[in-house]
């Protein structure tokens, strides 16, 4: 019984198994939302079939049907001439018919046994309106963010880059979802090798469903076993525009409000797009603070554990009293104390992320204040460590790319373990492992640690410090752009308007 049903399912799903158009239509009639009816006129009649959930019915009634009934239809060729809608196709290819009808085309047949039919596009385009970016919100700058509709997203990019060099290579990925994926690049600027790498990797994907670009990201990334993201995802069309101009490749996927950017480097994960909106001094100091915050976030708890477990000599004598007296009543060794607190912060974060926004806020307050104070009062953790853990959690959220902050928080745990086992030596060992791993990483085949390693002095203009826009006149070396010069800086004549 079950076996039969499965076979039936298989049969009904694959258009390859169906022999002809009438059989396909019979098959489609299994769905309740598939409408079919016959229009009988004096001297001509035609059959019309469509999915009412995919078709814009007002458009069908107002702009398609009137043209079909005004004069009798002789052949299918009359339809594209009469209906003032571009994209009407006449086909007898079953696969194409099936695909089109599933995307909201209307099938018109002249008689019930005809092998060919006309396909008129009349899709309903329902998309969320363009809203403010939520993940990458900036105070200044554009307030538009990508939505789930690929067409809207393409529009957002195209209107910012009105040049014919902007190419959009389209393909469908996913055996069942048939997700439309677009590779965007600027012809003559983006490196051809990079573009081909992305195309190749996308074409090689063999999965049944792509529901979000994050899934694509995992499938086309260079090292899938690394916790570090090797492609940046963004919801800002202006950021996409900006990286396209640099010569990067962007992947947009239907149904996902996130665009993927590659090739990228580690330092890019620590530069917010807002850095380009403010003066270079302000932007650079923000970047320095962020880099400090990352190092602080990874290292401070492990260093606390290492120092308290092995290197009491390193503690300044003025701090000694504070540390010892805060740990006086605590029964746990520093490592358990630290893991206990780190885990509770992770719990809070996870609980907050799974709950609706309003409840999430309450969780934050309950967790932060109640659990923190209570565990100090109960003598489970020292208040010094509580401050350290809270600060390092806070510091991990300064990364502008959300994915990276998850990685940073995760990286802390091996460091903690090593700190407990080997003290500061362990921290150093773990740090060398981290550096070795980062050195090995690639993003679309380009070095991930560039411009720090391999050291490319020219690319340092937009790495740890963002130099003034005047100096950003060359495209980054690591992109191997086909046109390396962005613009020729004009030296301004200095006007002296101070009359003394």
């Amino acid at each position, binding site marked *: 019984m079950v076996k039969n049903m499965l076979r039936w399912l298989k049969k009904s799903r694959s258009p390859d198994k169906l022999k002809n158009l009438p059989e396909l239509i019979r098959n489609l009639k299994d769905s309740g939302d598939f409408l079919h009816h016959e229009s009988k006129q004096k001297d001509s009649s035609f059959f019309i079939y469509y999915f009412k959930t995919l078709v814009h019915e007002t458009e069908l009634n107002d702009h398609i049907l009137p043209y079909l009934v005004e004069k009798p239809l002789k052949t299918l060729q009359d339809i594209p001439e009469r209906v003032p809608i571009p994209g009407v196709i006449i086909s007898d290819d079953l696969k194409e018919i099936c695909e089109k009808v599933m995307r909201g085309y209307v099938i018109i047949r002249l008689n019930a046994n005809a092998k060919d039919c006309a396909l008129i596009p009349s899709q309903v385009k329902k998309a969320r309106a363009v809203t403010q970016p939520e993940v990458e919100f900036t105070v200044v700058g554009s307030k538009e963010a990508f939505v789930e509709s690929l067409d809207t997203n393409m529009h957002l990019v195209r209107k910012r880059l009105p040049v014919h060099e902007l190419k959009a290579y389209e393909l469908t990925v996913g055996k069942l979802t048939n997700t439309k994926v677009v590779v965007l690049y600027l012809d003559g600027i983006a490196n051809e090798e990079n573009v081909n790498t992305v195309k190749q990797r996308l074409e090689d994907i063999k999965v049944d469903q792509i529901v979000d670009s994050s899934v694509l990201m995992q499938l086309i990334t260079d090292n899938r076993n690394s916790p570090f993201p090797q492609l940046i995802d963004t919801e800002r069309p202006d950021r996409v525009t900006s990286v396209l101009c640099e010569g990067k490749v962007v992947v947009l996927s239907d149904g996902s409000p996130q665009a993927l950017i590659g090739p990228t480097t580690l330092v890019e994960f620590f530069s917010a797009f807002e850095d380009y909106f403010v003066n270079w001094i302000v932007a650079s100091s923000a970047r320095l603070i962020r880099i400090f915050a990352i190092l602080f976030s990874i290292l401070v708890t492990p260093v606390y554990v290492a120092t308290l477990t092995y290197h009491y000599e390193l503690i300044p004598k003025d701090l*000694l009293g504070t540390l010892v007296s805060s740990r006086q009543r605590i029964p746990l060794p520093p490592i358990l104390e630290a893991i206990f607190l780190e885990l509770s912060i992770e719990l809070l974060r996870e609980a907050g992320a799974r709950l609706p926004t309003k409840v999430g806020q309450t969780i934050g307050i309950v967790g932060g204040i109640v659990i923190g104070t209570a565990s100090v009062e109960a003598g489970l953790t020292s208040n010094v460590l509580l401050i350290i853990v809270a600060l390092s959690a806070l510091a991990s959220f300064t990364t502008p790319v959300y994915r990276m902050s998850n990685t940073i928080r995760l990286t802390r745990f091996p460091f903690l373990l090593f700190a407990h086992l080997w003290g500061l030596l362990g921290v150093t060992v773990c740090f060398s492992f981290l550096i070795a791993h980062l050195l090995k990483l690639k993003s679309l085949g380009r070095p991930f640690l560039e411009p720090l390693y391999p050291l490319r002095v020219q690319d340092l203009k937009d790495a740890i410090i963002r130099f003034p826009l005047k100096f950003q006149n060359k495209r980054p070396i690591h992109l191997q752009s086909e046109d390396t010069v962005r613009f020729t800086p004009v030296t301004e004549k200095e006007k002296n308007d101070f009359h003394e």
Partner: protein
Amino acid sequence: MTRLFLFLVSMILLTGCVQKSILDDIQMVTIIGYDLPDADGEMGQIKGIAVSPQYEADGRIENNVFVQTAELSKEIRSQYNSESPKPFVSGKLEVALFSQDIAETEGIIELVDTLQRDPSIGSRVFLGISSSDMETLLKTNYGNVDTGTFIHDTLSHNSRHGMLPETNLHDFLYNFYSEGNDPFLPLVALDEDKVKIMGIALFKGDKMVSSIDAKDLFTFKVLHQKFSSNDSFTVSLNDEEHAAIYNIASKRDLNLKMIGSNKIVLHGKVLGVIKEYSGEKLTPAKLKEIEMTMEKEIEKKGSEMIEEFQSLNIDPLSLGNNVRSVTRGDFNKEDWNKRYPDMDITFKMDVTITESGVIE
């Protein structure tokens, strides 16, 4: 894969080799004092007094004092452990004190050597000589503060900004082992509930032979090194007129050109500011007079000091070391030691007063 496996295995196995010392499970000694045992039949040769602070959760600091007598200084530590609930560690040692008795009779290098050999003890530990009874000094409660830190801070700020020349474990060992130097250490004593710096103790080898009183330390520091401090020097012009001169910067120049004919000229230069003046009006002539008087006084004191050093055949001013540095070929230490007591050392002082107050 194999490499990763080996790494993980070695990581787990090697953890057994590291010794943990969790901060709140150790007894940190911050000051240690060595004294000769009391005469009434105590066993052993050395009495060691260790003070370890205990930080209470409510912010109080209690000083635990451990007193042990042993044959060797190394034995003392294991004896401390026998009466302490937590293992003793020496990594936070701030000060090591030696009683004047021990410094004068036994010498202290053996004790200093144990400190130096312990890798967890830093070379910036302060050494000092105490003229009071060590046990009383270390058992005294100096307020809600750990005794080691208290004495360390007293010595530290005085050698950074005050009258003491810089002395620590490293300096002591350098002066002890290098040719043409003799070490000196601060001399402290208990003054009711405070520790007072009485001066410095001068060593010949590792034995204390003499001392300089606290009021002469200004002169000693001028002779010894380049410095600037908050210390002041009082000049008395006559019974009524006194001036306190605050030293901004001082410099010493050694003239060793005439070393062949056994002559050394020491030039001291002081830039000063008058902080206090008890006379009526400070005229330029008066300033000149103050300068002259101060020069003369320091010169006199300094020359006396140098003479004393020569008669004891000690060289805390490291003149020998300076001579060695300008000697071609091998420096003969014995030869120098013979020459030194009869050397003609002249001390010249030059005082410049740059400011005498804001209101003229």
